[in-house]
């Protein structure tokens, strides 16, 4: 009996990851048919003389780094508040501007200045996160509406920080963060994502954050009556998203070695929410799986890269992306799921009946 329960639990867990996994499968099969060399990975020397890995797969994993980091925080906010933060792109532009300002202001750029700059932009992003969080938790405003404020004026604040210019930074350390550390063949953003994932996993393992967040998301009044400080949990989710935003902003800045407040991580909020939804998380809050969101982020990036490989222009990609998204969400919709389970149940029922008949004979 207990084994059966375990098995059921297991299948339930996989159920949530079904959509991103199906999407991955479809994309892999499609690419294999289209052009098997899509998956080839090779080593080559980059212009600083490093041996590095190159290939479409590497560029997918590398390119989705910002999205994956943001998806972690967005999942938490979604789970706790039942709404999404649409200001992450604007907040990342602010965080990136602060980072660039401090790096440029330093006399010589060494490891310490970069760490200080990161900490400063982390603090700024957390302040903006707690601003959003205050509106949501204390004033009880819908997250999407509350973050609309920062979405409207965030990029203007970023513009103001650097006085309207698009300053560049040039330092071996920042370029190492954006591309490759000498001697390491894996892109640094990928390593940063791995570190973030491990940190959040540790956070969930050793604190009650996961349980409390889910409790607040499922039923806020019940959580409050059980002694959970719901305001604090919601605020905390936004502050943690702020940390993710600052990491994503720094990766984005270091990748290009400049800050353009208008285009840095443009429209990433939509992709992030999409990643959370494709990962099987309910956008209405409650239970969540970080792994689903991260998989969702990689699905989106793989889709984009596949379309680019098919010579679709960057402006037209959106239309094809929309079709795939609709297909995915239709497969994952409650109605189709119910219909599918019913059909499966019928099949299983018929099988059992047949087996029963045999035994009877």
């Amino acid at each position: 009996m207990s084994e059966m329960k375990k098995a059921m639990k297991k299948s339930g867990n996989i159920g949530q990851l079904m959509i991103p996994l199906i999407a991955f499968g479809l994309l892999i099969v499609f690419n294999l048919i289209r052009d098997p060399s899509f998956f080839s990975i090779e080593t080559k020397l980059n212009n600083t003389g490093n041996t590095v890995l190159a290939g479409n797969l590497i560029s997918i994993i590398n390119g989705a780094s910002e999205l994956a980091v943001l998806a972690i925080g967005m999942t938490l906010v979604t789970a706790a508040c039942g709404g999404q933060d649409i200001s992450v792109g604007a907040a990342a532009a602010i965080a990136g501007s602060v980072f660039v300002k401090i790096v440029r202001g330093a006399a010589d750029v060494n490891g310490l200045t970069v760490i200080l700059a990161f900490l400063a932009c982390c603090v700024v992003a957390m302040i903006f996160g707690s601003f959003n969080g205050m509106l949501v938790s204390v004033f009880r405003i819908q997250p999407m509406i509350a973050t609309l404020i920062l979405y409207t004026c965030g990029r203007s604040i970023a513009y103001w920080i650097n006085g309207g210019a698009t300053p560049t930074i040039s330092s071996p350390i920042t370029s190492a963060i954006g591309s490759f550390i000498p001697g390491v063949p894996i892109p640094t953003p990928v390593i940063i994502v791995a570190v973030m994932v491990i940190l959040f996993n540790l956070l969930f393992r050793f604190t009650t954050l996961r349980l409390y967040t889910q409790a607040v998301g499922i039923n806020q009044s019940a959580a409050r009556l059980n002694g959970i400080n719901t305001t604090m949990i919601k605020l905390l989710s936004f502050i943690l998203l702020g940390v993710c935003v600052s990491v994503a902003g720094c990766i984005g800045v270091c990748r290009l070695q400049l800050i353009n407040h208008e285009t840095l991580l443009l429209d990433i909020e939509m992709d992030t929410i999409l990643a959370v939804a494709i990962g099987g998380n309910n956008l209405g809050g409650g239970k969540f799986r970080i792994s689903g969101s991260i998989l969702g982020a990689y699905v989106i990036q793989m889709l984009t890269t596949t379309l680019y490989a098919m010579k679709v222009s960057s402006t037209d990609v959106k239309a094809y992306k929309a079709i795939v998204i609709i297909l995915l969400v239709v497969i994952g919709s409650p109605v189709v799921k119910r219909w599918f389970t019913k059909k499966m149940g019928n099949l299983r029922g018929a099988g059992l009946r047949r087996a029963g008949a045999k035994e009877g004979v």
Partner: protein
Amino acid sequence: MTVKNASLPQKRREPLTDTQLLMTITICIFFAMYALAMLLLGGGFLRPQQIFDLLNDNAALIIVACGLTVVMIGGGIDISVGGVTSLVVMSCVLYLNNDGNMFVAMLLALGIGLAFGVVHGLLVSYLEIQPFIVTLAGMFFARGMTTILSVNPQKLAHEGLNALRAVKIEIPWLGYIAKNGNLIPGRIELGVLVALLCVVVVFLILKYTRLGRNFYALGGNQQSALMLGINVKRTRFMTFVISGLLSGIAGFVFMMHTGAGNATNAAGAEMNAIASSIIGGTLLTGGVGNIIGTFFGTLTLTTIKKIVVTSGLKDPWWQSITTGAMLLFFIVLQSVVLSNREKHNAKKKDSSAVKKG
């Protein structure tokens, strides 16, 4: 005796509903703001043409915001409206430039809007997919299709429609005397009439038809609406259809105003429309909202931008920072007003319960 008489009419007066309260605040603030601008800035704000210009420039936004308000009252959200508008503009311009017929172009605009509305409605209400994701995909699709149709800006070169665009309603007695002594009459574009018509029609639908009242019931509490025998799925479907249709009309009006198709047309219109609805007192949670409020919300939003520009803050970032600050003000104000009412109501209930007890 006199005390009783004095208290009677007060008792009978029904308290304002949340919708009306939020709308009243918006309208008051709009007029106060405009009066202040007239006093302090003078100049253009003293001329009626300023209001006409606001309407001329934002007719499409008003229509789009109406559609969005309907969806938001029903408890959903539609962020595809800007994309659909730009797709309609681009396809109509391309069609008309290929010797198209004006009326067919109108039908094309309505058809595209309707198609988006129907697909969104089907996916959201009958397949139970989250509206945000569905309309996000709709926005991606519409924006992508716009650039597939043409990446380069297209100028409208259709004689009939250009003639129609030039038609403006002139009101001499609301004009002003220009520096050279000529009287310049107040000018209103045809698109504004369409926008006002849309506002009136949607207002009537929401206020006096069964469908409109069902929208409020659905947004207020879906479970109760279902138990009252409302066809919840069809009602939700209809909110998206109305929003799509209005986006199509907005696209045509937008084309009448600008006379060109461009991939960046109506960029950010969805967020502006959401902001307008919120300023007008619509709650994203559903069940609360009013078209008249949305109309004034749009005007408030665009007036503040105009005030920022006229008062000499020419840097582009001032506009969005003031818009953000204003949004913050309205949102916090609404939240405080509503929670105060809640507390007040709870107290009233308590005291009445005590009295009865």
